[in-house]
């Protein structure tokens, strides 16, 4: 049983840390959450390890810890991010611009409400289906679609909007 848990950690730790980092936008918070979750999971591994997909259960534990995490990060400068992204104009092949565009998007994602952010990370990082996202977030598929569409609306930058409106 101990070996089984160790194998799980060896196989999944890196992936879990990356997922948690994408989720929290804070690598240290991600590390704290993953460590705490794995310590809790190790004490109940006889039950968790016997499940069909222990990694999904552990991912759900990580997600729940993040969703119930009390101390909120200071809100990021959303207006700056919108403006930065808008000012970059249409997508371009220039790697430097693309890089800046990506960073602006990262900052924007960090401002999403937690469940919306979780849905986005699960869909675009973990490539999860709506059904899988629903299982991890503990909600219906309809709610998942609603989280995703709201998030996409928030992340969409109307490039025709004058930047001074956003500032």
């Amino acid at each position, binding site marked *: 049983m*101990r070996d089984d848990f160790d194998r799980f950690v060896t196989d999944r*730790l890196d992936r879990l840390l990356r997922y948690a*980092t994408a989720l929290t936008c804070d690598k240290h918070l991600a590390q704290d959450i993953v*460590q705490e979750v794995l*310590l809790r999971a190790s004490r109940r591994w006889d039950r968790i390890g016997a499940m069909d997909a222990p990694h999904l259960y552990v991912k759900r534990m990580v997600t729940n810890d993040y969703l119930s995490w009390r101390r909120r990060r200071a809100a990021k400068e959303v207006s700056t991010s919108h403006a930065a992204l808008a000012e970059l104009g249409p997508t371009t092949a220039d790697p430097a611009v693309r890089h800046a565009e*990506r960073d602006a*998007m*990262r900052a924007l994602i960090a401002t999403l409400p937690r469940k919306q952010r979780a849905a986005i990370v699960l869909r*675009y990082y973990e490539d999860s289906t709506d059904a899988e996202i629903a299982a991890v977030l503990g909600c219906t598929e309809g709610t998942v679609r609603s989280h995703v569409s709201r998030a996409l609306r928030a992340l969409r930058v109307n490039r025709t909007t004058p930047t001074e409106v956003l500032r």
Partner: protein
Amino acid sequence: MTDQEALIREAVTAEADEAVDHRAVLAALRTRRARRRPLALLAVGALTAVAAVVAVAVPLVVDRGSPPAATEVPPPTGRTVLLVGLDDVPRPDAVVVARISPDGAVSTLSLPRDTLVDLPDVGPGRLGDAYARAYQAAGTAGQDAHLAGAEALARAVSHLTGVRVDHHAAVRMSAFAELSDALGGVEVCLRAPAVDPASGVDLPAGRNTLRGADALAFLRQRRGLPKGDVDRAVRHQAFLTGALSRAAELAADPAALAGVAAVVRRTVLTDPGWDPMEVAGLLRPAGAVRGAVIPVLDPTEVGQDGLDPGLVRPVSPEAVRAFATSHLADPAPDSPPPPTAGPDNCVG
């Protein structure tokens, strides 16, 4: 996929790439799991750490009562001392690296004696074997067996942790009860009565002066404490603080001092060139001790490769080195002291 979705995917991936190195987390995780498990190994390690620190620190504090010697200049770089707790064979029961920083902060790092290491000139073996092999060889050749053992152990520890050891000091575990007696008892304060048949402890709430067997029982108790090992580590710190302040009080009593000094002289063995007085100016009598155990993997059964059969504890050398370097690093001069038993110095 829309262009927006492609950008989101890139952004989320870039965020995920910020993740900390999973190997560092693995090491931290294993240490924390090890600490939570009620292992006899850790019990012995923590107890010996206290015994060894008391044994080394007591003469330093005691000697403060006398006029400072000309050599008593605080070393500006601090000192790293290997503390060895010996059983009656003697074999190292616990191996502890103690770092005394220039401002007097003390950090201890325990290394299980069954740690699987690459012994210089020998190959794979248990850490404790470094001492035992050299002890035996020197004894047969008519040389100082303990000195040879301690030096071989110091080399093996440096090899494993990457930490340079300046000096070594060893104490027999059985000396611990004797030491608390020589101090005239060590005062601790309990928030609740401590009763545990397994360790033999039976103490009322409030202030207690512990001697001999009672002191050992108090330090050994783990069962019945809400947080087990963690609570016990806090007790060790409270006991250490009590022992050091008791030693400071004794400075005015020459007869008692002589008794403590005799026990220390008989029980603590150091490297011949070292005068422990040189760090006396650094130690703080009521200073807290920050302790930890190196990250170890789960025990493995062996019976081949030239190793004696039984359990060994494999380690990741990189993880041990990283952990040792960070744990034994001197704290910044203005950093707050580590948490201790509480404002009233009472423990659960």
